[in-house]
């Protein structure tokens, strides 16, 4: 069975640094790993940590709680 890997590209990779994402999508499948794009993706919300230390918890857990 093919291994699956959920890709977490962060915030800058999918919006600006496309080269990294292009090379990930090129190379990882060659290693026999299937990349899965997360539905309803959000970044880790790091700047919110400055407002309140716990605020970043929500964007992290969101994916699992939505299902």
């Amino acid at each position, binding site marked *: 069975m093919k291994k699956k890997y959920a890709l977490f590209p962060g915030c800058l990779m*999918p919006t600006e640094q*496309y080269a990294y*994402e*292009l090379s990930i999508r090129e190379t990882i499948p060659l290693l026999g790993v299937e990349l899965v794009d997360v539905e309803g*993706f959000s970044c880790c919300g790091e700047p919110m*940590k400055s407002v*309140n230390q716990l*605020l970043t*918890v*929500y964007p992290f857990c969101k994916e699992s709680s939505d299902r």
Partner: protein
Amino acid sequence: MSIIDLTSMGEPQTDLKKELNDRLTKLQDEISDYCFQCAKCTSGCEAHKLLELEPHKIVALLKRGLINELVNSDVIWTCMTCLKCRERCPQRVAPVEILFALKNIAVASGKQIPGKYTGMLQSILSMGLIQDIQQITTHTNKTLKRDELGLPPLSKPIDVAKFQAGIMKIAMEKV
């Protein structure tokens, strides 16, 4: 919902302030004592090169109790959380934790967050990313967007209202 709603949270503010002060007191009394001003944090600081943030001075000022001066200064907002200072510190002081505590206190005491920073926060609240999809220029001088490079479309938070409500809930209930 805007970032103003998030920073002015009404009632729980006193609890929040007490907890933040406890955290800062711990950092001030125990952790910053280990710092012997080797300035390794500053020499690696990403924000020092462009924005004049000097983590070892922040630690020194905290040790001398100049908390109000730090909280009211804009320089604490230039930290970009690369965590290099924590990695490099031979005494495990982690200036980044001090900066987080100072920024949290600045928000809790109603200080304005600098403009660009507010923009990033607002962007996370509205679409779950710190910025929208940008155009890039290739080495052949072409301006391209994400889809033109053959990348799949980006999936953003499906239910924005639910996403914001979740963040708001954490902000209100327990800090």
